[in-house]
């Protein structure tokens, strides 16, 4: 092919064709896969919520296994008895509350508006769980998760996830040894809503002190850890009016 690839006109035409071709491929792919991806994301939310209330398929010490995707919808409706939305003073029930994106709602609230705050009430072995979604920021990107409380405001379980924390350091917030530390901690300090701090100097690596509102931090992941503390605190503050009615 004897083509002068240095000509300006050629460069422009090449650029245009390239952009159109690449754009179409990506648009086509994205539309084609959208429904499947949405479904996966929906299942993931259900799995995470169930995980926080202790409905999972964990085997052994370090394992984090969710209810499999083919069973998750059924399991979700079995354990989650009620999904409610708190909006200002109003409380409404909504079967799709779990699809609410916390990021958007928190943005609205920060701007002074009234965001929709979803809350899930689960029941397992005759015991009630109140599951709160959380959203915050870690070192590199977003972190989020769910925290489940009983009616005495004792943590029954948590689930954390992240978009881009450092593998081996901040990314470890989604490992069992970290998440399990939260179980049994009280979020209250006396009558004050203290949240749970990811603390570097609590001298309690086995996490035997459940009254200190602290869990042992991850080495090398200070900012992610602080992000987790801040995220829990923010969520609990937002849900405080509801939580105080539980006791």
């Amino acid at each position: 092919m004897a083509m002068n690839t240095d000509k300006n006109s050629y460069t422009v035409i090449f650029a245009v064709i390239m952009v159109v071709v690449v754009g179409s491929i990506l648009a086509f792919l994205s539309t084609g896969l959208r429904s499947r991806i949405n479904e996966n994301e929906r299942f993931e939310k259900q799995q995470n919520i169930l995980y926080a209330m202790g409905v999972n398929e964990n085997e052994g010490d370090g394992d984090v296994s969710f209810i499999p995707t083919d069973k998750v919808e059924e399991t979700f409706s079995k354990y989650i008895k009620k999904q409610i939305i708190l909006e200002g003073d109003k409380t409404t029930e909504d079967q799709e509350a779990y699809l609410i994106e916390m990021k958007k709602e928190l943005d609205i609230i920060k701007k002074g508006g009234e965001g929709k705050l979803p809350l899930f009430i689960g029941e397992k072995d005759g015991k009630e769980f109140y599951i709160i979604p959380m959203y915050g920021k870690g070192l590199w990107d977003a972190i989020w998760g769910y925290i489940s409380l009983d009616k005495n405001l004792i943590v029954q379980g948590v689930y954390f996830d992240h978009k881009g924390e450092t593998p081996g350091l901040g990314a470890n917030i989604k490992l069992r040894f970290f998440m399990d530390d939260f179980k049994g901690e009280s979020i209250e300090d006396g009558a004050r809503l203290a949240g749970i701090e990811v603390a570097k100097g609590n001298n309690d690596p086995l996490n035997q002190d459940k009254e200190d509102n602290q869990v042992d931090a991850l080495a090398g992941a200070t900012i992610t850890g602080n992000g987790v503390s801040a995220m829990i605190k923010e969520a609990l503050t937002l849900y405080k009016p509801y939580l105080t009615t539980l006791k």
Partner: protein
Amino acid sequence: MALLSKKDASLISDPLADNNPITIQVLGICSALAITAELKASVVMAISVMFVLGVGNVVISLMRNVIPSKIRIIVQLIVVATLVIIVDQVLKAFAYELSKTLSVFVGLIITNCIIMGRFEAFALGNGPWRSFLDGIGNSLGYGIILVIVGFFRELLGSGTLFGYPVLGDPIEKTGLYALGYENNGFMIIPPAALIVVGIIIWVQRSRNRALIEEA
């Protein structure tokens, strides 16, 4: 090797040793520092880069006669980004769990200097097959350093390999820890990777003095 001519085989073997992208060309250092705190992440990153570099090199090589030289860098960037996004989307639809593990690496792959470097230095001037071999060779060379660094950082920093405790339990004080051994917390922060890479560079150059650059 009967499968590859001697010249082709050197495309694979050179980057593993005397022309290693990390220790000799000093490319791709950023990701080598970022994700080598554990062995598993090193392996995942190495495989991802191998895929992107192998396929990307072939694509660029096939397009090498039609790419206008003025905008070739942008074209290369678009090819890498497109490949990575395609892989990401397909995984999200069909292997959601895997895609979550890899999401951290997506950004690091696009900006990996080795990928752009090989496109520019090799694929633009060579045929698809040789470019493919070059891509595989360089990503292996990159991967092997990642694995070595990951091995030492995870072993000395956390006392585990692939997440399995190999030195005993640091909290219960079993195994080596019973003798007073402690994990070195410094190893899991990124500067430690720089030191490990530095030691590898030192060892490699002292074994083969021809590699030492003239000051």
